[in-house]
């Protein structure tokens, strides 16, 4: 059975077997690269979110001061 067949699910002894997901085989280097990029993106997302929270706070103060 190929990985693609397993993803679709299959009939076994008259009962439907749920699909089985298997990660494609990856080397340690590839896994390390994925983890590194995920860490980088998580760090940047956190900084951006923090910056936008501060920005929204400042916008609120500025608009309140302008009495719009």
């Amino acid at each position, binding site marked *: 059975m190929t990985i693609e067949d397993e993803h679709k699910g299959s009939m076994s002894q008259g009962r439907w077997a749920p699909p089985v997901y298997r990660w*494609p085989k990856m080397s340690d280097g590839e896994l390390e*690269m*994925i983890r590194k990029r995920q860490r980088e*993106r998580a760090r940047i997302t956190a900084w951006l979110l923090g910056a936008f929270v501060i920005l929204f706070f400042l*916008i609120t103060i*500025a608009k309140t001061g302008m009495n719009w």
Partner: protein
Amino acid sequence: MPTLEMANPAALPADWRDFVALTKPRVMSLVVFSGLCGLLVAPVQLPLVLSFTAILCIALGAGACGALNQWYEVEVDAKMRRTAKRPLPAGRMDRQTALHFGVGLGAFSVLLMGLATNWLAAAMLAASILFYVLVYTVWLKPRTAQNIVIGGAAGAFPPLIGWVAATGHFATLPVLLFAIIFLWTPPHFWALSLFVRSDYAAAGIPMLPVVAGFESTRRQILIYSLPMAAASVAPWPLGLTGPIYGACAAVLSLVFIVLACRVATNRATEPKDMEAEKHLFAYSVFYLFALFTVLVADRFLA
């Protein structure tokens, strides 16, 4: 950055640098600059944080345009040397990620603009993004040699958006700034497309040099340079700027026309012999930066 050979690089989570590349940062710099000038020459001064937010929104909107443009044109980009190394054609990012990123960035920029400044500016930002993506990228660019002429309107919006973000309404000066960029776009892009013509021809994009030939393109560059120069100088006789701007605009525009004349008289067909076109392209970028800088300087000196 460590590199790793993979059978399918798009299976990796995209690198954050590829997201930055997706926004076309070099194009964004000109958009941000013209938007900032529109904001600065407006008679109403916004609080610093709201001015910063307005410019940030214009930048994010431009980034969304770049991402959606690259999402749609991935096959065309793969055929051109100039664009083949972008994240999508190079296989460093999958298309769906680029689409989600572009739509998310565009929606966020419009929403933030509306909340921080006013909804007219937000509506214009939304209109410029939709115009660039739907009218220019999807409709005009693959179909007509006039793609740059009409599509140039998308790049002309930023000073208008900057002004409206500050004042909440239209006026003659920002409309003239819109006209300057609108009329500047064809000579700027046609000068580039003359010396990268083979790239556009290989990708099947009907740019003017591909469809109408070198001579016609060079003539049209000169023809468009004239109303562009008139629009550049116009704010002075209309009493919207001072003589400093008027004099600088006249000199800058005169040099532009001289370079356009050199292009119009050039008969070269090989990129290596197109020094005149390369000079005009480089000068056109400087021209817009200088013109808008002088406009802001004139406003503050007056």
